[in-house]
């Protein structure tokens, strides 16, 4: 039997794990995702309202890079980093790696541009919209792509998820999604929103994209 592919799933918060687990089960059940959790990244670098400083401190860059190196050395064949506000730090930290390391969003951003240039973003925390928009901007700038963004925040949703109120969280997201038409795709900003799409009413020509599923599809395509 061929050796199974091991993907390190690195996260600053454990609510990301069920959605990434779901994505692996659906899309790539042959791979073995293994969890690496570090609560300290949230504790030290994310404010109480889930926003972050415009420029993260060097300590955050150092810690994310060290965590990625640690994960690489646990026999991982690839790494998915689930913290959506750490995209820029992951891009810096993975430099020189010979295994693929994906940020939360880059798989989803690729799929979004494949769907069109009018990008919809729905999130449960304002900070995430900014982070995803920043990641999109860097991605588009590197490729010379034009685009527009429509965004909405389902206020209070992320706190409900942290409090364990999954049903309340999902209801907020579903309501907000219904109001977002007129875009070529709808991206869900948090990893922890990844199980909601099944509940969102279908809008023709507006695929709902989730970061964990897109990340797993992208990682699978690399093996």
């Amino acid at each position, binding site marked *: 039997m061929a050796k199974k592919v091991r993907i390190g799933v690195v996260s600053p918060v454990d609510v990301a794990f069920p959605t990434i687990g779901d994505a692996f089960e659906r899309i790539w059940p042959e791979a073995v995702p*293994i969890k*690496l*959790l570090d609560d*300290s990244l949230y*504790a030290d670098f994310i404010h109480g309202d889930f926003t972050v400083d415009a420029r993260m401190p060097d300590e955050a860059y150092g810690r994310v890079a*060290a965590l990625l190196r640690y994960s690489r050395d646990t026999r991982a064949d690839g790494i998915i980093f689930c913290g959506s506000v750490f995209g820029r730090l992951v891009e810096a930290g993975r430099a020189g790696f010979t295994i693929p390391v994906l940020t939360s969003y880059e798989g989803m951003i690729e799929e979004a541009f494949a769907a069109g240039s009018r990008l919809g973003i729905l999130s449960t925390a304002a900070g995430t919209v900014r982070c995803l928009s920043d990641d999109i901007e860097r991605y588009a700038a590197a490729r010379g792509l034009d685009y527009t963004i429509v965004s909405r925040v389902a206020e209070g949703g992320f706190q409900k998820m942290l409090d364990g109120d999954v049903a309340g969280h999902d209801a907020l997201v579903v309501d907000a999604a219904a109001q977002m038409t007129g875009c070529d795709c709808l991206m869900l900003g948090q990893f922890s929103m990844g199980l909601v799409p099944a509940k969102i009413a279908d809008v023709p020509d507006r695929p709902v994209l989730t970061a964990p599923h897109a990340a797993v599809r992208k990682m699978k395509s690399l093996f």
Partner: protein
Amino acid sequence: MAVRIGVVAPMLITIDPMGAAFDEIWPEAEHLAIADETLYADFAGGRPITDETYSRVSDLLHYAATTRCDGLVFTGSVFGDPVARARQDIKIPVLTSYEAMIEEAFEAGTRFAILSTAQGSMTNLSADLEAEAKRRGVGITIDGHVAAEARPPILAGDIETHDRIVVEAAAKMTGCDCLMFAQVSMGLTAKKVANVPGRPVLTAPEATVRKFKRLLG
């Protein structure tokens, strides 16, 4: 600023029992988790402890030591020796899963009972107790019971079944100076065990938090 303790774990299921012990015994302390399940996948469940185990445990603890923690506890019971070696050059206190509980056990007496849900933990805790007895120059007895049928339920998230098996097994373990639970993941079960006078039930999470509170509180 609050004292911060890092709970370094080879399995996510050991985090909640540690958190519950902090909430009850030392709520003023901040506790956060740094968990790597590859350690459990590669080295627990009867797999051999190798040089790679030592270096990976060391790497994880050294990483955790950079996250502004004032103390660390490693919650994997089969990793006692790698933790003991790795902490030699870490400047903050680093506890293995068992050492605080073993201290409390020797305060309770010398007739020990151990209840475990895995043979590996039983072997490790027994060895750690024997080593401590030798160091202290005292004779001990160990009455061990492995309730292996409780392990699959806890790994699958079925806490109720796990707890029922553990509680039933604990009821039969009397005639000792203390009863130790060998898994960190059994930490939340102790509250459900019927009280037996003169037989305290010791758990690794509670003993660990009490020890940190003495050291750093």
